[in-house]
């Protein structure tokens, strides 16, 4: 029986010729990631190891991004714990405020994730790097600690679901709409413990930013990882961002086994919104009423990349945020922030009456910088709309693409670009 892309990467890192779904393996890691919430717990655990120190100071990435610049004293203490640990262990890839970004946008940009890598991160959206053909998956702080200490992690080899993408999406339909549609179709546990492998002729119609968005939300379907084949576009991305790294391309065998296969025609998809309180509550505009909103957030590890900001700016240019609405734009990394400034996007946002923030997770997880009051509704380009995710328990989060978020900011209700003549 052949192997999937994910299984091949796991086999290689476990030093095995072949692995099968369900097999328990121990594998060597190329990168171990943590943030300002999960790392302090891992660092405490590190003290319990008999052998002190980290396995490789160049293969650990520490990114304070959730509550930074620090929102309160406790988060400042947590960040200090991470900073001091990084200093003590001479961690190369520690990213200080002012030189950082949201981890899953930052690491590929910094060339720290390439095709064929095996990556664990103490953050559930670590699955993002599958866009480049890496096997990456979220774990908890204890796994992170063990990974930092030993360079290894245990895995149960996943089975896989294949998504065959065909057709060209229309202008305002993005990677976000594709993944919300898929989660709506299979449910929030539709890919539990499994790999989501995205293939098909239409992969070429998706930008790298679209692919990052799709792989990022594999976890919202319960997936262990999401992964794309490595094509010319992915190679040119790696050449630009990781010129000093070598990468290895793994292709699924022709007889690889998939538990399920779906064909998705991207040309048939419309703008999609996930209603509260689960990402699987996906609806298109013909399935919803007019819904008034109070706030729009454009940012996060899902949709805070440059093409997301370009889309939002294209819609907000020469228009204004509706009266009584707050629109918060958060470029995902310093580099994107600078690029957005140079391209004039930030000016467009500010002129439209939006807030532009330094990179942070902030409101995405209800941390700070845009918390919702009781009963308020937000259209957000983030990835979770659980109860209380962005604030009060009875506030509501509607997940959408940057195009829908920007159009909604203009009208003050959930809207697609066609509603403002685009």
């Amino acid at each position, binding site marked *: 029986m052949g192997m999937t892309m994910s299984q091949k990467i796991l086999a290689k890192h476990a030093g095995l010729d072949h692995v099968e779904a369900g097999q*328990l393996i121990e594998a060597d890691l190329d990168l171990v990631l943590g943030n300002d*919430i*999960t790392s*302090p*717990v891992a660092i*405490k*655990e590190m003290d*319990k*190891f*008999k*052998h002190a120190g980290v396995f490789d100071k160049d293969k650990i990435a520490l990114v304070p991004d*959730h*509550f930074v610049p620090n*929102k*309160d004293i*406790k*988060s400042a203490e*947590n960040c200090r714990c991470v900073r001091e640990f990084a200093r003590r262990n001479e961690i190369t890839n520690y990213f200080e405020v002012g030189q950082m970004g949201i981890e899953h946008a930052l690491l590929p940009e910094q060339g720290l994730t390439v095709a064929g890598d095996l990556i664990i*991160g*103490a*953050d*559930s959206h*670590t699955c993002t790097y599958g866009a480049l053909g890496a096997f990456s998956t*979220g*774990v*908890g*702080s*204890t*796994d992170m*600690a*063990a990974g930092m*200490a*030993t360079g290894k992690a*245990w895995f149960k080899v996943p089975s896989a679901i294949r998504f065959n993408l065909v057709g060209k999406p229309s202008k305002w339909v993005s990677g976000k709409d594709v993944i919300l549609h898929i989660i709506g179709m299979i449910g*929030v*546990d539709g890919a*539990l*413990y499994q790999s989501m492998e995205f293939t098909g002729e239409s992969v070429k119609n998706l930008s790298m930013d679209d692919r990052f968005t799709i792989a990022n939300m594999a*976890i919202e379907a*319960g997936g*262990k990882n999401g992964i794309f084949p490595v094509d010319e576009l992915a190679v040119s991305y790696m050449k630009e961002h990781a010129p000093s790294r070598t990468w290895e391309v793994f292709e699924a065998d022709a007889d690889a086994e998939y538990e399920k296969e779906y064909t998705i025609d991207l040309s048939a998809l419309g703008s999609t919104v996930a209603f509260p309180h*689960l990402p699987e509550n996906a609806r298109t505009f013909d399935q919803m009423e007019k819904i008034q909103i109070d706030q729009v957030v454009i940012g996060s590890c899902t949709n805070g990349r440059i093409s997301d900001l370009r889309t939002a700016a294209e819609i907000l240019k020469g228009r204004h945020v509706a009266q009584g609405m707050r629109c918060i734009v958060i470029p995902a990394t310093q580099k994107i922030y600078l690029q957005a400034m140079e391209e004039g996007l930030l000016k467009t946002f500010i002129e439209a009456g939006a807030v532009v923030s330094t990179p942070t997770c902030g409101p995405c*997880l*209800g*941390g700070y910088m845009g918390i919702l009051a009781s009963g308020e509704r937000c259209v957000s380009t983030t990835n*979770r709309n*659980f*109860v*209380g*995710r962005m604030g009060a*328990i009875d506030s509501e989060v509607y997940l959408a693409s940057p195009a829908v978020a920007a159009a909604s900011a203009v009208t003050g209700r959930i809207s697609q670009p066609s509603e403002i003549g685009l």
Partner: protein
Amino acid sequence: MKSANGTVFKFGDNVDTDVIIPARYLNTTDPAELASHCMEDIDRNFIKNVKSGDIIVANKNFGCGSSREHAPIAIKAAGVSCVIAETFARIFYRNSINIGLPIVECPEAARQIGAGDQVSVNFDSGVITDETTGKTYQGQAFPPFMQKIIDCEGLINYINASH
């Protein structure tokens, strides 16, 4: 811990880590403080009523969402001795094993056991007994590798013991 015995708190599908421990409390790593907010956004009275040894029973995809280990830590520190569910989200499953919080997958038990029932779980055999109704269920036993981690009360002890 080879067995658990306690009163059941019952939850539904897709109990996510944001309701198990809301992000507004993630600026601390202290287990006792985390426990004091455990389940706050889904059941305000949970922490007032839960006693040491009690058991959580839930339906499918328990622990979905973020990778925060603060979630199983909060549950464990609240005194919960075992979580039984139809299925668990995978990161939560890993984290629970890694920190030594016993969890058992058993769809039948998860559906049939009622809130307030007195339930005991034998971790060696995987047998779940609802003492209130007298029914028994066979939960999924752990593969030997995971059983070793649980026997060592967590991944770190296991690694220390085996290296």
